[in-house]
């Protein structure tokens, strides 16, 4: 789902890229400025507002007791949902999540789940009957490009500051949500031979293929998703993975540790 972009703007961006430049002056691997505000929603157990350049994403975490899955009776549950609300972009429409929203939520979920970031074993209340359920709800507020990375960053930031509200449910004292890892998603798009990290809305509109790489604190890759109707060469994939690991490390150290 990409927005309309004028031919003249496209030409301009291409010409810049040929000279090794981007419209906002960043290098090809450089992220836009990141700002994270944590725990700003009082009613949520954890929350984060992420600004990635002009892109804004709010993530709220609600934690409630509920039933475990039958195949994991002693483990907490993670439910991730994303809403591309129409306030965030002229091309978002009201209604149930479409495939873009579903993909976004599932990739963010993959990062949190596969990295083992949340210690789900510590979230059992009554084995087989009651466990803590963590709802991660992603609300896109302003889509100026790369909502994937912003959402993923918001999710882990919100989880890191979240409190399990045990006392509210008469289940003992509140305790901080046990978070053991910090998965970071980094996304790049390709144009011919060039790969651009953290694409803005115009760069997304002219790119065909996008690759998101999620890495853990120890540098291990825990999730990946190619998206968009284009192709990537093997070399491009390797290059993106290598740079993604470095970018993720930097973001993790600067904003979340």
């Amino acid at each position: 789902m990409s927005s309309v972009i004028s031919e003249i703007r496209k030409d301009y961006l291409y010409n810049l890229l040929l000279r090794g430049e981007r419209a906002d002056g960043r290098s090809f691997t450089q992220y836009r400025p990141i700002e994270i505000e944590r725990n700003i929603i009082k009613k949520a157990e954890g929350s984060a507002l992420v600004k990635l350049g002009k892109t804004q994403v709010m993530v709220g975490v609600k934690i409630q007791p509920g039933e475990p899955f039958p195949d994991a009776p002693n483990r907490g549950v993670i439910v991730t949902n994303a809403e591309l609300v129409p306030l965030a972009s002229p091309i978002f429409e009201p209604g149930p999540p479409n495939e873009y929203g579903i993909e976004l939520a599932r990739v963010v979920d993959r990062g949190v789940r596969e990295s083992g970031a949340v210690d789900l074993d510590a979230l059992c209340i009554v084995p087989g009957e009651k466990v803590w359920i963590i709802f991660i709800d992603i609300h896109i507020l302003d889509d100026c490009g790369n909502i994937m990375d912003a959402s993923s960053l918001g999710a882990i930031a919100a989880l890191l500051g979240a409190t399990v509200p045990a006392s509210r449910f008469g289940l003992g004292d509140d305790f901080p949500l046990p978070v053991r890892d910090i998965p970071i998603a980094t996304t790049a798009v390709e144009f011919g031979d060039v790969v651009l990290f953290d694409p803005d809305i115009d760069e997304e509109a002219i790119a065909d293929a996008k690759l998101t790489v999620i890495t853990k604190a120890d540098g291990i890759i825990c999730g990946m998703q190619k998206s968009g109707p284009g192709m990537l060469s093997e070399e491009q994939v390797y290059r993106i993975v290598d740079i993604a690991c470095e970018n993720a490390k930097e973001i993790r150290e600067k904003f979340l540790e």
Partner: protein
Amino acid sequence: MDERVFIKDGIRLDGRRFDELRPIKMEVGVLSRADGSCYMEMGDNKVIAAVYGPREVHPRHLQEVNRAIIRYRYNMASFSVEERRRPGPDRRSYELSKVSREALEPVILTSYFPKSVIDIFVEVLQADAGTRTAGINAASVALADAGIPMRSLVSSCAAGKVDGQIVLDPMKDEDNFGQADMPIAITPTGEITLLQMDGMMTRDEFRQAIELAKKGCQEIYRIQRKVLIDRYSQFEDLQDEGSRR
């Protein structure tokens, strides 16, 4: 996490080595109403793909003035898995439909058919890890069978990590209890059109997995090519007879 052993003396539970695909069976033109179709078995996966179009777009507002749109519907039969699945699309199938469409879209010459749609329907009849890749393989052949102009076929398979080793084409048990799963789709010239990964891999393992999956895809490509040639050389013979008469 699990103490089961999946690889013993280099041999997997079903007797394969780490770099072997499960047995593959493909058949072209299995449906008569569809413009193109293909049935595929990859181990215990059984999928069938149909292609309709290029045809008129309904609803009309979806049409594009300069190209055909592609729609891809990945659907699992309720009886395809151990526990009955609720019929209809769930969030997983929405995602798989999207990435599968995007795996095929780059090779289809959509600009030849403005204002039309090419519909691809994939039904999973039996599932055993690898249904999305089987679906893409079958759909790619079904597109060719429908006579849709394409730059090339697309071939797809997964590599995974089991017992700490990178293996080709994991089956259900290996996928469930393994440490990682990475489906890819690739053109014969090596362009990657689908890439997903979940689980954990180091960068080196990731490279190994890509190399292995690439080899698997090349093998599948040879089979896709062969079934198409077999199917259409029949017609060539008939045509020769016709012209002689």
